[in-house]
């Protein structure tokens, strides 16, 4: 049997009084709240970036001026573009995964904020507007997102070789070039530039969160080290006695670690209990920015709507606090004991 004192609950070293169950747990509670908010911020930033990438940012707006005018091939410009997009969607060309022609009332509604009245009332000649959904992972879209290089590459004679089919066959030919062939003057508006900036913003937020988490962990370790040293000072005589009786370092560091990790775990658990309602409140505030705002109307729905990874991370916080407490106490006590022969 390995030489040891009794289990920590027997308190052979008198640590219940030497290591108060008030200050340390409260400090860990505060740090857990900070860590939880930081984690939630980081995960929310990642979620928003993902949402932007997968949602609005993958949408491309194609405007076809003079949609009723004739296009090469004997059709109207609008129909030529619709056919091209339909063909690209069907074959997955140029990263197009879906396309929809907006109705005139929808176009009117889009313009209303700028015109002030219904566009139909002004007898304006409206363009045909297509909402095109791109695959974010597609090379073509990635190129566009990186800086409007969407149409980079060979436009060349793709259309000449067989209209839209040849454009698709060209592989790397851009959507802009293909559209220009079937309906010259067609405008393509994409969100690549602001997506790239928002993604950068989200990444920097995540980096800040990682630094903040590291700082919280470092401060937690420092607080635990200070508390442990205070406990060592308070129980110096007792430690020297059991050391003199032949207790190995492990037998002395063990009760300290057990006590400290228990206090840290308890404090962190309290912090978790306090921070969850706060997080749910924040989630409610940020609901409009999330994809599934419809699911945020009840607390149960909120719980379900928050990312699973966030819950897993939150659940890990007390374990992390306990681990930091255990390891820091071990290092501190063993370091202190090395001064004894």
């Amino acid at each position, binding site marked *: 049997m390995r030489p*040891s004192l009794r289990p920590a609950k027997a308190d052979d070293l*008198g640590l219940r009084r030497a290591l108060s169950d008030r200050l340390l747990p409260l400090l860990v509670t505060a740090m857990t709240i900070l860590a939880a908010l930081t984690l939630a911020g980081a995960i929310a930033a990642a979620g928003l970036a993902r949402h932007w990438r997968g949602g609005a940012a993958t949408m491309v707006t194609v405007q076809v001026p003079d949609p009723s005018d004739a296009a090469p091939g004997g059709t109207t410009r609008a129909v030529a573009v619709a056919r091209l997009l339909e063909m690209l969607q069907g074959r997955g060309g140029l990263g197009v995964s879906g396309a929809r022609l907006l109705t005139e009332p929808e176009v009117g509604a889009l313009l209303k904020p700028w015109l002030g009245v219904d566009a139909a009332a002004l007898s304006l000649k409206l363009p045909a507007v297509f909402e095109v959904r791109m695959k974010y992972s597609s090379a073509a879209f990635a190129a566009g997102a990186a800086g409007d290089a969407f149409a980079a590459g060979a436009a060349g004679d793709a259309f000449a070789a067989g209209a839209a089919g040849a454009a698709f066959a060209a592989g790397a030919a851009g959507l802009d070039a293909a559209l220009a062939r079937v309906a010259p003057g067609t405008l393509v508006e994409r969100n690549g530039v602001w997506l790239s900036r928002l993604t950068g913003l989200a990444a920097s937020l995540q980096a800040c969160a990682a630094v903040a988490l590291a700082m919280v962990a470092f401060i937690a370790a420092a607080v635990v080290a200070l508390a442990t040293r205070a406990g060592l000072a308070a129980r*110096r*005589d007792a430690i*020297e006695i059991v050391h003199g009786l*032949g*207790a190995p370092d492990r037998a002395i560091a063990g009760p300290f670690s057990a006590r400290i990790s228990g206090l840290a775990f308890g404090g962190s658990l309290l912090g978790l209990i306090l921070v969850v309602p706060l997080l749910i409140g924040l989630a409610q505030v940020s609901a409009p920015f999330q994809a599934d705002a419809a699911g945020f109307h009840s607390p149960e729905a909120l719980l379900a709507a928050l990312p699973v990874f966030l819950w897993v991370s939150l659940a890990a916080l007390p374990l992390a606090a306990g681990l930091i407490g255990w390891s820091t106490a071990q290092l501190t006590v063993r370091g202190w004991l090395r001064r004894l*022969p």
Partner: protein
Amino acid sequence: MVRLESVGLRYGRADSPGAGHNQALHDQVLHDVSFYIPGGGFRWLLGPSGAGKTSLLRLLMLAVRPSSGRLEVLGTAIERCKRRDLPPLRRRIGTIFQDFRLLPHLSAFDNVALPVRLAGRPEGQVRADVEEMLRFVGLTRRSDARPAELSGGEQQRVAIARAVIARPKLLLADEPTGNLDDVQATRLMQLLIELNRLGTTAVVATHNQALVQRYPGRALVLADGRLVQDGTDVAFAACDGTQWRGA
């Protein structure tokens, strides 16, 4: 077995808790001390206050390492011993401190139980051993009392019980009868003699001249940190100190 060859001891900051506050502790407290105690031997440790008795006992209980010379305790050369090898050696040494050194938050029972728990004995065996030991020192009914609730003599008896419960190979005692009445002092000496007869090496520091005369044996006499006598014919006058004579 204990062997010292030209051992010197100078307290440094790392060796003594109070060294930083007491410049005197930085002084050399033991000079060129050499003696040998065979296994199962017994030695009185005599000398006036400040002669270095407690420092010598601290060396033997492995609370400090020698600053110079060679120290061998229970067959282990301490100056070459790694730190991690010392705890098992300490568990073979029993010590009775002058100031008892009991853990104030533990009961008499738990104080006495510390060495056997550290020795890894099962809890059932610990209970039986501790109860027997407390019965021997007459503290059965005080087993739940904490040191603050015990008299000086009772605390001394708890300290004695704790020192001998694990049947140490080396027993060190610093003024073990200082707080005991004659009956208890006699019982303690009978216990020490019995342990010694069973093979425990014993070193007992005392000022009690009557005790030494009642239990004559070989003695080590220290004065000013130097060993001035090692023999059976103890000349108290050799100490040449009024504290020793009068104590």
